[in-house]
């Protein structure tokens, strides 16, 4: 017997809002990035589970999940490059202390 689909969906909902909580509460840029990773993973679980349960003969949700992983990897590299650059210019990566775009 399989795990019911609601179990997966409840799990991904909870994980998504854990990510949202972290996104609001964190001050550190890297912490915010980690919360975004949690959110993306929760969404990815949903894509894969819907593909498995609703449409198993084609691979639409599966491929979408794969491309989400690719885009998340690219997004993380660019975000980390920006964070390192911000740290070099301002010696700080807390969102409260980053107030100007141009120096």
């Amino acid at each position, binding site marked *: 017997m*399989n795990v019911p689909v609601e179990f997966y969906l409840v799990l991904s909902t909870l994980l998504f809002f854990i990510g949202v909580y972290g996104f609001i509460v*964190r*001050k*550190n840029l890297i912490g915010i990035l*980690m919360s975004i990773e*949690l959110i993306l993973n929760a969404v990815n679980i949903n894509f894969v589970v819907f593909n498995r349960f609703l449409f198993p003969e084609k691979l639409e949700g599966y491929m979408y999940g794969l491309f989400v*992983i*690719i885009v998340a990897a690219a997004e993380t590299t*660019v975000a980390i490059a920006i964070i390192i650059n911000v740290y070099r210019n301002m010696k700080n990566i807390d969102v409260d202390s980053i107030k100007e775009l141009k120096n």
Partner: protein
Amino acid sequence: MEFLTAYLTANNIIFFILAAIILVFGFLSVTTTKILRAATYLFFVLFAIAGLYLLLSYEFIAAVQLSVYAGGIVVLLVFAILLVKNLGEETEKVSCQKKLVSAIAAISGVVISLVTLFGFGFQNNESADELTANVNMETIGQTLMGVDKYQYLLPFEAASVFLLACIIGSVVVATNLKKEDKK
């Protein structure tokens, strides 16, 4: 009692273990004050999600999850933390008011989503042979490389160009050439 035995199958037990790991470490990852520990907890969460994909018998996406997320992104995050902050340095204390506001936002979101989810009434497919069938690599390769309907050559190529652009972009942003020329 009957309810309990109906839910205690091997699949469900594995699912509950994985779900407990994901939720506990996910929560720890957003609440811990030490940022390096948060990265470690994130690693456990990503690992358990790969286990979830294996439970759905999607091996390839589990492997991709392990190699790209657990192997790549977490290592990148740890490198960034070590480059940016001193080891073990704590993040600033978060005020209670901000925590409260975020918790209210998150909990109200959870309530709304769960009400919608259980109100929808999903029909669970009882003939479950189809749901545990493996997807073999040949199918995945043809789906990625074909140009017909339900085949994804164009997104695949777009993803390669996109990754190249991201590599160049992050190198340009991180090296900060202008400043060093002036010096």
